[in-house]
Each structure stands twice: as C-alpha cells, then as structure tokens.
C-alpha cells in the first residue's frame, strides 16, 4: 500500500501504549464492519498481573511485527506466552486500510504511527 506512490508501513513506540484496545476494535470494524477484537490484524498482548503489554501486527511483507515494551532486540522470556500468540496467525494480514490506517488514527497516545 502506498500514499502517492510512497510505500507505507506502521511503526510503533510500545512504551506509549496504554492497552486501551481501540486498535484491535477499529481494525475489525474496518474489515468486517462490526465492533469486536476477533477479526483484527493487530492484537494487544496483555499479561495484566505483571503489567506487561504490547502489540502484535500481522503484515504481508514482514510477517509478525512485535511491539514489545522491552524493545525489539530483547529475547522472549521463556514460558511467558508473550507476543506472537497463535490466534493472530489465523487472521488476515494488515492491508493498511487502503492507505489510511485507522489504528494509527484512533490510537490516543501516538503509539501507532504511519511512516513512509
């Protein structure tokens, strides 16, 4: 997907995430015209007791993009059940909402951004 010929992608600042869940909901709304989190290409991974949360985006070109609070280079903690959980593998990849990603528009903190 592109905007005036420039390829677009989503970029994340995970520490800005507040786990509001709106990105999941608007993704499903755009795809299926209903409010739910079940059809989204982006999922919020939450381990609420540990206050650990981040985002997982299923893309066409880059596979699963993980937005983890500890940063992209940190190893996954064993047994954490962390980002990359199974359900997203069964979902449709992000189509960038046809060039105007709604998750970026609805994100209240700027955690999700569109970059060229």
């Amino acid at each position, binding site marked *: 997907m592109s905007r005036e010929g420039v390829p677009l992608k989503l970029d994340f600042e995970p*520490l800005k995430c*507040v*786990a*509001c*869940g*709106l990105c999941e*909901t*608007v993704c*499903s*709304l*755009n795809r*299926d*015209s*209903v*409010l*739910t*989190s*079940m059809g989204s290409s982006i999922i919020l991974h*939450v*381990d*609420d*007791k*540990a*206050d*650990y*949360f981040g985002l997982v985006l299923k893309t066409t070109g880059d596979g699963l993009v993980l937005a983890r*609070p*500890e*940063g992209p280079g*940190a190893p996954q*903690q064993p047994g*954490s*059940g*962390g980002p990359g959980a199974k359900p997203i593998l069964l979902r449709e990849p992000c189509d960038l909402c046809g060039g105007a990603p*709604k998750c970026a*528009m*609805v994100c*209240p*903190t700027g955690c999700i951004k569109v970059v060229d």
Partner: protein
Amino acid sequence: MEMMNGRIVALDLSSGEVTETQLEEDIVLADPSCVMRTDAIWKEHGEDSVVLGTGLLTGSLVPGACAGVMAGETGIMPIMGNFAVEMKLSGFDFIALTGKAPGPGYVWARDGIIEFVRSDAVRTLDSWERTDRVRDDQGDRRIQVLSAGPWGDSGNPCAQLVNCYWGGEDKAGLASRLASKNVLAVAVRGMGELSVVDPEAHFASCIELRSKVVSKLGEPKGLASYFGPAGRDDLAALVHRHVACFGCPHPCRTFAKVAEDPKQMALSHKEPGYLHYDVPGLRKAFEVGLDARSATEVSMMCARMGAEPVAVLERASSGGRELTPAIVRELLATPWDMEPLPAGRFAGGFAIDRALAMGLCPRLWAKAGFDTSAIMPCVESAVGRGVPL
C-alpha cells in the same frame, strides 16, 4: 439491534436453569440507562438476586466506553477495565443471578452460553489465584474475572469484589452478596460482535469527539490526572506504566512496582506490584501515614483477600498506632473480627451519573464534561437515531 445483543439472561444457581428474555430495541432506545435497567431487573428478580449490566455504548468507539454496573441488595457498583466489554461481547447485555448454588464455584459466560462451574478448590484461593485458576481452567488469558476473596467468602460487609487483580469499584459490599450465593467469581470472555448502523460515520464522529475530550483534559499523568496526591514523589518513583480501561484516551490507572525495578520493562516478576485506581483507598492510605511503597503493598494484600482498603485502614489505624503493612497483614488474616460498617457507608464511591448510565466511564466524563450534543453524533451513527442521554 445495533450496539446490543437484545438479551437478558437469568441463571438460577439453585437449579442451573437458564432463562432468556428478549430486550426490545424501542424500549432500550427510549430509556437507555443501564443503571436504571439493571436496578429494574434486580427488583424483578428479587432482593436476593445480583444483576450485572452493560450500557448502550459499552464497547463502542466513544471515549471511555468501558463501563458496566452490578446491582445487589447492598447497593450498586460500576464495573470498569475490560469486564463489561467482554461481557457484552459474550452475548449478554444483562445477567441476573438468582438462587444459591449447591456448592462453591464460578459463573462462566462466553459465546452466548452461561453456566455455573462447580469448584470446591476455588474457595481455598485468594482473589488473584481465582483469576489465575479460571484463566488456566478455561485456557484464555483474556478472560475477565470479578472475584470475591476470602473476605467475601466470610460474608464480611467490608469485603470488595476484585476486577481481575485490582480493587476500586466495589464500595457496595457486593462481594459478600455474591459469595452468599456460593458464587466466588464471575468470568466472561467475548468473542462476539456488535453491529453499528454506519461504521464509517461512527469512526469519524468518535475520533472528532475524542479530539474535543482530549483538548479539555491536559497531559495524561495516570491516576495523578484525577487525584493529585498520586503524583507525589515517592509514588512517582514506583511508577511502571499507566494503563487504560477499554477505549480510554486519558488513563487513570497507574501501575506501581514494589517487587522489582519499576524501569524493568521485560516480563520477569509475575507479581511485581499493583494497579492503583482506587482513589478513596489510596487517599486513606496516605491519610494514615503510609508511604507509597507501603500503600502499594497494603493495596495488594487487600485485593488478594478481597477486603475493602478504606475499611481495613480505618480499623488498622484505630487507637493512633503507627501503621505498617505487617499490622494490616495481621488484620486481614482475621476477617471475622471486623465490625460491620454503618449502613450506607459504601454509597457514593463513584458518581452514578449519566455517563455510567450509557456505559461510559464516569471518571473520564466527569473531568471532560458530559456534553450531550457532542456525543449525540456518535450515538446516532451507532444506533441510527438519537436517544435521551
């Protein structure tokens, strides 16, 4: 019906029988208050019942559309976080619990199914362990659980329901009401969907409304945005992250870590601290002289036991003794020693106002100002017409 399932379900805990009643769209839209409807359903099913309700806008894109309510003989409480959204997406707008289960266990609602799951083991667990157990048993970490801890089980009027792991909503003594029915937890998971009349218009109108709301609120500072003392230095030093309820642009929940470095971002300690949003509880902790670390530790202990912290701290600090977490721990081990608080003690912990009636966060909208003309385009795009707000 847009934004609703159109279903009221009653679960007779004595027999396990489930009865459904259709919720007529015209009736809902003419009088959309979920607070009033929950109260009416409670009266219909008798004073012994406990009723959970969701609002017309719960789960919508309207800012702060996270709220639900629970009503019982001792009062009514808001339900925040993600519970009400998950409940609505489980297929039920209102859940009435009647009778008494033959033994301890938990109510489990998902995919349009509701049942009582017998579990003697749950009674031996504190509220945190109950949430963990239900999630493990049902195999989903996003199940939302309202649970009574040992204090609720004992029938203590100073008990509180805990929302997953955190306390702050139940200032109505409903933990003991549920436990008296052998319901030690209520668990919900929503994999359903809610339709809206015009998805594009709903999205656009809610984005516009969000901009107006945010412009009135200033920089988000977690709980300190709503309760100044939450910004004091000793608590600020413990802050890990701020956490929103569903759909909130101005989160009021602040996680304080006491068991590891607050700057630790990777998942390491499984129980590192506490999510503060209980303003009366934190205010009381500071009033009795606890520092932020001790206040956080006490909040964790009270939540695990299902004990309401204001009542606990009042009792623990009586006689003017210097309060420590150890004293509170000792008190929490003897819930039967607590005297009932005067009737009405828990009333008014949260404003039961127009925002909550629609399924919106009363705290957010009290600060932003409940502007019906600004909200109405979001309502119309969702349900197809205006409603009395």
